[in-house]
């Protein structure tokens, strides 16, 4: 799987960084999503959960 994020859509709620801080972080200045690990190896379920929880639809999981 591959994760894609769109900081322009991000509302900075922090749900992704809360759900899996190994895969997602937040920008220090504007709090928008920062993708730490686009493959999320070993964290697939959490990454899917984060995409589902994202209130702004800023996270996409592409299953390969």
């Amino acid at each position, binding site marked *: 799987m591959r994760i894609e994020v769109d900081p322009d859509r991000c*509302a900075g709620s922090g*749900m992704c960084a*809360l759900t899996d801080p190994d895969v997602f972080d*937040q920008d220090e200045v504007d709090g928008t999503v920062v993708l730490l690990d686009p493959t999320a190896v070993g964290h697939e379920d959490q990454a899917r959960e984060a995409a589902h*929880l994202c209130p*702004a639809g800023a996270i996409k999981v592409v299953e390969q």
Partner: protein
Amino acid sequence: MTETLDSGSPSALDGIPLEREHRLNPPAVLGELRTTEPVARLRFPDGHLGWLITSHELARAVLADRRFSSRSELRHSPVRVGGQVSPRPQPAKPGMFIGMDGEDHARYRKLLTGQFTVRRMNKLKPRIEQIVADHLAALRAAGPGADLVREFALPVPSMVICELLGVPYEDRDEFQRETRTTFNLDNDFEVIMAAFQRIEAFVADLVRRKHDEPGDDMLTGLIETGELTDEEVANMGLLLLVAGHETTANMIGIGTLALLEHPEQLQALREDPTLIDNAVEELMRYLTIIQLGPSRVALEDVEVGGVVIAAGDNVLISAPAVNRDPKRFERPDELDFRRSATGHLGFGHGVHQCLGQQLARIEMRVAYHALIREFPDLRLAVPAAEVPMRSDMAIYGVHSLPVAF
């Protein structure tokens, strides 16, 4: 058009049901609606014919859909205030981005999101622990029979907001007194409005002072962006105050009642403090204190769950009903700290989802954790049925919670 055709429709609910059969459960009629009519017609007090949504899936869809607006001036009030039908709201004041859409909303929100990140809020934890410890000491000093709301649940979020906004120590007593007056509905409407105006004036003055005496706080941070007028900064500060005070305070108060009414869950949490994160999510889901919303307004005709919501129609979501939807949560009426309650809509959904949610989570975790650790014999000082509930308030909870220990 729809309004004319459906006016007087016997099936429209006349106002949102608020009467509860049990103090910790939403009104049963909302659960019935979720089964029979998850998108139901709702008559607002001013006569507007809108909609009430009780399904989790459909609520999520509406909140994520940008064809539904948050603009203040498009809304109809879902309740009477002081027995009166409220006039249509004015457009949001500069900085009050909760009542704005699109770029207007995003511009303000983005200036704050960096200050509310998970990491920033975690850094505040030691300070929050200190505030919680101070107020638990005050609760103990007040002795058995003390009101946990007055001594603990209300002042903790108030002090945290003071910390964030950078209210000087010497002003905090006054600030607390005024906020307490504002949120105490035993007071007359005029008394409450006068106190709120003093808070507005206080925050406006604080913003002016921050120009000369900048601090390590949010108001200073907003001023230093150089993108905002003082009026915008002050309104953003007021928004944070209003959004972050009564909500968290009521969760601490009614959350404590829920813990005391579910001794097996309380015991599980005492035995395994690592359950606290789950416990907070589950209490948010189970108690869902936002009982009059969130709400949105259709900007164009939109189909939701097989019905067409017409442009201009107000849509009220019953968050308490949505968070008890059995299609989303198994055994929804059970409080269970071992379940994963994530995905509840207690903080809303969509681009307006609660900005302060990571702060609220930490406040609740610290508050519940310290309370049950420091008070191993905590119990109600009155029968549970006598605890005064905030039945007709926008934010549900307990008016007071007399405890013994």
